[in-house]
């Protein structure tokens, strides 16, 4: 049997699959033009018009069929499955699955972690991307630097997980550390240097972060109270969510600052980084930030270059310094692109599965929704709760979906 040899099977599939596709498109057109509506005889003109009305659907059919069966239908089917119970033979059980899910600590852990990911990864990737774009655009070897920062885009999440597992690797205290993080960590001994790099610098960074979030929040509130302008109704809940998210971030940051000074650090002890609960989430996030920064950089760099040079020159003539030019002239002009980058990374984060699956598999309080769902589905074999958690992911995606469709419609008009 040829199925024994996957390479041959693959080759056959390419030939048959591509051939069938092309054949379908070619022959369906021929049949339409020659058999059903021939462009001859008394009705030639009418037939041509009719054929031209049907032709788009011939071109679209395979794609629409695939989209409907593999993407549209599953949304509704998953919704249905989330309301049924597999053990009861698929009986309708209402919101029972959701109730069970809500009662699981692991679910709430996944939600909390997902929200954390949702805030940190897009923000960090966009910030690093913007920084890299702005810096590399100004030097001659910028393109080379860019292509190296962009490179992780090509690496699979699994590959990246292996790479970072090596960084986080732990050996017993009496052996040489082979993970970079522990090797660096053991260099700290609690002296002045340690206090400076591990407590002072992070505190300053966090204060800076709080400042930025606070500033954004403040402009936001000011913008809101100023009112007057016509705003879309559906923007309001979005703004509210953003405001709450911002406040939560500030709260979290302040808590972290306190932690930094209160916690006694176990100097000299090699750490198993991925088991330190709460903070291990950040060690996982680093992997995704590492990958996504290149993406953000490439797009933001193109946007930065699209800024009319005259506006920058005008600012120089007006006496702005490089920082003012960047934050007051350039960033506002690429705000639209920043939003697009942010939402794109947000989408990736919502579906994040491989990294968690490969590095911790959700242990030590690192669960996320997609992995939770996989767990329910293939380990617990519970279609009901699995579907329910998929629906939760869908709900989280929906605002972005609506926003994208709204924008696409606006653009086409």
């Amino acid at each position, binding site marked *: 049997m040829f199925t024994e040899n996957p390479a041959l099977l693959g080759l056959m599939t*390419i030939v048959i699959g591509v051939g069938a*596709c092309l054949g379908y498109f070619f022959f369906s057109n021929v049949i339409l033009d020659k058999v059903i509506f021939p462009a001859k005889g008394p009705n030639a003109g009418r037939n041509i018009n009719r054929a031209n009305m049907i*032709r788009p659907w011939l071109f679209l059919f395979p794609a629409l069929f695939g989209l409907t069966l*593999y*993407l549209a239908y599953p949304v509704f089917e*998953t919704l249905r499955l989330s309301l049924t119970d597999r053990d009861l033979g698929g009986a309708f059980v209402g919101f029972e699955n959701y109730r069970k899910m809500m009662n699981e600590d692991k679910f709430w852990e996944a939600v909390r972690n997902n929200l954390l990911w949702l805030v940190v990864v897009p923000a960090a990737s966009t910030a690093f991307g913007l920084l890299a774009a702005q810096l590399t655009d100004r030097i001659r070897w910028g393109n080379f630097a860019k292509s190296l920062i962009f490179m992780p885009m090509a690496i699979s999440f699994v*590959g990246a997980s292996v790479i970072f597992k090596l960084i986080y690797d732990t050996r017993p205290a009496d052996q040489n550390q082979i993970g970079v993080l522990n090797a660096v960590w053991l260099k700290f001994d609690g002296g002045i240097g340690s206090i400076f790099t591990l407590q002072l610098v992070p505190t300053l960074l966090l204060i800076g972060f709080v400042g930025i979030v606070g500033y954004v929040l403040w402009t936001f509130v000011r913008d809101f109270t100023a009112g007057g302008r016509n705003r879309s109704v559906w923007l309001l809940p979005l703004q509210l969510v953003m405001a709450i998210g911002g406040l939560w971030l500030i709260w979290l940051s302040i808590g972290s600052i306190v932690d930094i000074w209160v916690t006694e650090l176990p100097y000299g002890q090699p750490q198993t980084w991925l088991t330190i609960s709460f903070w291990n989430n950040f060690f996982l996030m680093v992997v995704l930030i590492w990958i996504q920064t290149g993406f953000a950089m490439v797009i933001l760099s193109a946007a930065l270059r699209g800024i009319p040079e005259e506006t920058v020159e005008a600012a120089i003539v007006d006496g702005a310094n490089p920082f003012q030019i960047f934050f007051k002239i350039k960033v506002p002009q690429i705000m639209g692109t920043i939003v697009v980058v942010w939402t794109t990374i947000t989408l990736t984060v919502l579906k994040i*599965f491989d990294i968690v699956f490969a590095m911790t598999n959700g242990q030590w309080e690192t669960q996320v929704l997609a992995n939770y769902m996989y767990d329910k589905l293939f380990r617990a074999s519970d279609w009901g709760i699995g579907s329910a958690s998929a629906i939760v992911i869908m709900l989280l995606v929906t605002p972005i979906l609506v926003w*994208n469709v709204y924008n696409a419609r606006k653009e*086409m008009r």
Partner: protein
Amino acid sequence: MARIAGKKSRLTWAVHISVALLVVAWLFPTVGLFVSSFRTADQISGSGWWAALFPAEQNEVYRTGDPDDDRVAVGDMFEVKGNIFEGEPRNISSWGVSSRDVSAFAPGETADMGDGETLTLADDGAYVWRGTDDQISGRGQRIFVTALVPPKFSLENYRTILFSGTGQDNMAKAFFNTLTVTIPATIIPIVVAAFAAYALAWMEFPGRALLIAAIVGLLVVPLQLALIPLLRLHLAIGIGKGYMGVWLAHTAFGMPLAIYLLRNYMVGLPRDIIENAKVDGATDFQIFTRIIVPLSFPALASFAIFQFLWTWNDLLVAKVFLIDATGSTTVMTNQIVELLGTRGGNWEILATAAFVSIAVPLAVFFAMQRYLVRGLLAGSVK
């Protein structure tokens, strides 16, 4: 800005240094994996990979020749002579005969091991072990050497992973399985999507705008939603778990992005050219194959790269739709995850396996980066 009005910005150096730091930070993890994949298991567990690039003081353990074979009677004593390095001279800084004190002696000194038993080690590794009949017997004497070892790399790990390894340690099958998944799953969606994109870009029909909006919507639907219903569907219609299922799934999951990218590109082609082809007598099918496809090459290439990277790097779709209980159709990502579970400490295997799976996408990335960037811009900036 640095060049304006001849004023060299003070920031220029800061910029160069910052970019260099960023690049190093971003490159560092991958280089670690790359370097590790060329080191032996002992080297990896002995020192961090960053130490592998420089000659390093290393503690090594050697054994003298076996007394049963090599000892020679000298008077009433016996001697074993030889060279621990066997033609590969090292620079010995110190040595010892006990694990408690590995650097007790300098090269050339003689260690007194009690009751007249002695061992002399020259700095070229030549040794003389002398003692009584009783002392020079059993196994060879251990010698602990501290020496400066030059960096050493080998392709042994790759040989294991690609050819000689057994079971999970051999990635050859998974490599071909991955290829088998990837190539049809890259080509077929391009063909299907290109026709649909042409229809959406250049043909007039009612409901076109609505369809485009729907595709933009489907662009963000998480594929997690598709897993359960489609797996059930595949099992119900007899496809089950296998290549057919994973090809279909990848084709459909790649479709929204493909249509979106290609339509955006095609819609930007000059209307005049397409109308001119109509006046020239080309049918829609001919316009598509003779005009649109050649002109859309950049967009087709960028989508091909996306889809290739995505299918090659995918884990979830393969796990759900392809890999059955026998595991004979495993792909590289899945095998690496399994290795992480079973061989978590064997970095020589893990690093090499990971690098084998990363190498192809990296090659594609560096060869076709231009198209990848263009595709990204077309897909997001609009």
